[in-house]
């Protein structure tokens, strides 16, 4: 029942081993050692390691295959192509949290900022202590981090790639005497095109699309894009494969795709992995599947300077302000295109025009907050829906973060600052350092905060105790045979830094475990 015709669309750039909906002309049945659902940070890394280890790997990815030459600065077109639901997915709560997920071969790594940090030692210690995970402390993880960093080429930026917005951020931190460090990013001489969130048009960013995916293909993995997995099949307590459908151009289901495999891996990300397991009837005895969702809630503010900044010339987030890391706050400069910036302000009409006339003088800065509350993901009408309540403690932390970040940007010479609190165009604006006190003194109702996130984690958490965790320390689902989770769902707690490298290191470690135990998975 297999119908595969290779050449069609984009044959010039599509590598061998990648199949798209144009290749699947009928219902398809495949056999493999391992089927991996999702080709992002977790899925692609695992695929490459297992394929190199000699296993026959099939990867199924709901998103399309795009190549470096498809990526442009046309922000909204890229968002429509590369993000799930046009980037407009919302966790229900007070305030609602807008979250974004990549949906393409390479997953969210295609649209991420490339920040590449190891899991902090204190977090790994906590996982060892509280989740009972062996072999997870810094010294155990060291070889896996090193291996990932080699593969995705983690480096500091070349100086000429750093733009003025980032230099101003650093200047502000230096003026305050705050700790500021150059960011580590997965890039090969990134020249600072400032397009990371819309796909890297130079190929410098070593997203999974240009690193682990080609490596996996080179070692014989097969990757089917445009295939949405509906459920995992089972025989009693054993996972036996997956069933899904080709995604047609209009998003509807096309031909059926079935994969039979000895090991089934869900690497769909922290929103879709718990939903897939739940849809497939793999509830966890711990009751924790879909729970424990952390988000690293994030708010941004806009500082306007007198001088030209042209924040779109130069890499974003060249530096991270680490002064408040122990309090769970990181700051960075993150330029965004005018369309997205306009969309996130409360200005309109002539007032919007006047504000945007200063676009070239703006520094957009944001913060990452290590959160203390958790939410959950549930299947509603067969689709995952996230629920998350920002805690009062974290709301206050975000408010304090805005005050600190504002102080710092005024120290760098900002003339006015727009806050991410929807208090109307003027009430949400600071005219100088004296106004900063206002943020501390005025209550900021949570519901007025514009909170976004790109770091969803923790919904199928690892832990040695099957009554408290969904998977063991390698992502193997407790009480199920041959079912693994390999993505951001695995984190027992938020990690307070950008998560990609942690996911990739855990995937490498999981691959090592599978390859070291061939009899268990054959």
């Amino acid at each position: 029942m297999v119908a595969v015709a290779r050449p069609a669309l984009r044959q010039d750039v599509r590598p061998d081993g990648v199949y798209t909906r144009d290749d699947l002309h009928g219902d398809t049945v495949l056999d493999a050692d391992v089927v991996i659902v999702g080709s992002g940070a977790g899925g692609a890394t695992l695929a490459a390691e297992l394929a190199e280890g000699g296993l026959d790997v099939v990867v199924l990815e709901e998103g399309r295959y795009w190549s470096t030459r498809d990526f442009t600065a046309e922000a909204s077109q890229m968002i429509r192509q590369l993000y799930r639901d046009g980037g407009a997915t919302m966790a229900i709560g007070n305030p609602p949290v807008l979250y974004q997920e990549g949906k393409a071969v390479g997953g969210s790594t295609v649209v991420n900022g490339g920040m590449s940090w190891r899991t902090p030692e204190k977090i790994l210690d906590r996982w060892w202590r509280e989740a009972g995970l062996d072999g997870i402390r810094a010294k155990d993880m060291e070889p896996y981090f090193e291996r990932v960093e080699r593969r995705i080429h983690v480096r500091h930026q070349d100086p000429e790639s750093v733009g003025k917005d980032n230099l101003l951020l650093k200047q502000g931190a230096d003026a305050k005497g705050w700790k500021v460090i150059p960011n580590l990013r997965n890039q090969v001489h990134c020249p600072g095109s400032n397009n990371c969130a819309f796909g890297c048009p130079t190929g410098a960013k070593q997203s999974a699309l240009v690193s682990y995916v080609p490596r996996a293909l080179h070692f014989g993995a097969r990757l089917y894009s445009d295939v949405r997995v509906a459920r995992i099949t089972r025989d009693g307590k054993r996972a036996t494969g997956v069933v899904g459908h080709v995604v047609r151009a209009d998003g509807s289901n096309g031909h059926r795709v079935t994969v039979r495999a000895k090991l089934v891996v869900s690497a769909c990300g922290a929103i879709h992995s718990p939903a897939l397991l739940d849809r497939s009837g793999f509830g966890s005895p711990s009751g924790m599947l879909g729970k424990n969702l952390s988000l690293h809630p994030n708010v941004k503010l806009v500082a306007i300077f007198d001088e030209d900044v042209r924040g779109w010339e130069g890499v974003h987030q060249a530096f991270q302000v680490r002064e408040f890391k122990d309090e769970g706050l990181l700051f960075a400069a993150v330029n965004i295109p005018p369309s997205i910036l306009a969309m996130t302000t409360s200005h309109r009409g002539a007032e919007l025009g006047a504000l945007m006339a200063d676009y070239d003088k703006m520094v957009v800065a944001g913060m990452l907050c290590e959160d203390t509350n958790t939410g959950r993901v549930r299947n509603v009408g067969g689709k995952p829906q996230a629920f998350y309540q920002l805690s009062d403690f974290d709301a206050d932390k975000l408010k304090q973060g805005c005050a600190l970040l504002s102080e710092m940007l005024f120290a760098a010479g900002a003339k006015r600052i727009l806050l991410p609190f929807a208090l109307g165009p003027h009430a949400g604006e600071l005219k100088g350092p004296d106004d900063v006190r206002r943020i501390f003194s005025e209550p900021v109702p949570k519901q007025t905060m514009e909170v976004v996130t790109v770091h969803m984690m923790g919904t199928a958490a690892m832990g040695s105790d099957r009554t408290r965790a969904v998977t063991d320390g390698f992502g193997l689902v407790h009480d199920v045979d041959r079912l693994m989770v390999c993505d951001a769902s695995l984190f027992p707690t938020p990690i307070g830094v950008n998560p990609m490298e942690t996911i990739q290191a855990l995937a490498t470690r999981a691959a090592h475990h599978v390859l070291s135990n061939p009899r268990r998975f054959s």
Partner: protein
Amino acid sequence: MSDYQHSPATRRILTSLVPVICPPEAAELGITDAIVDHVGLTMGVLPAAFRAGFVLGLRTYDLGALAFPPARGRRAHRLPPELADRYYESWLHGPTPIHRQLAIAIGQLLKLAHYEQPAAQERLGYRPAAWIEQVKRRRLEVYSADIQRHAQSLIEPDPLPGIAPHARSSKKGAA
């Protein structure tokens, strides 16, 4: 991506909202239709339930003007500029979160669409494509050896410790 297209009624309502939300330059630059088209493209990728709710909300917004005394029995898309503005404000500060969320969503989609227009970007001096081309070229000129070296390393064997190296698999194709 669905093949969503605005109905004439939705298009009319959105067109009437362009001067309320977008800077006056939208009219000067003659980009009103392009803005409304762009909103359609964005709506095409939104979750289906969200899209249906938004379309319904727009209709309600239009009809709701009938109950807005200053409108004197006119629908929103027929209001003169000053009244259209006041009517939109009445939703932005409306009695329920649904009023407010719809007004915000209308604003967001139109603002996004406005500043995605090349003419509006040109006004801001925002020319990212030229910048990308410039730095892309320079990267290749200066660093091509390093770039090649890394690309090559991606396909070199590097087995995990204790795992025997395997020859490249020849399994290909779906059959």
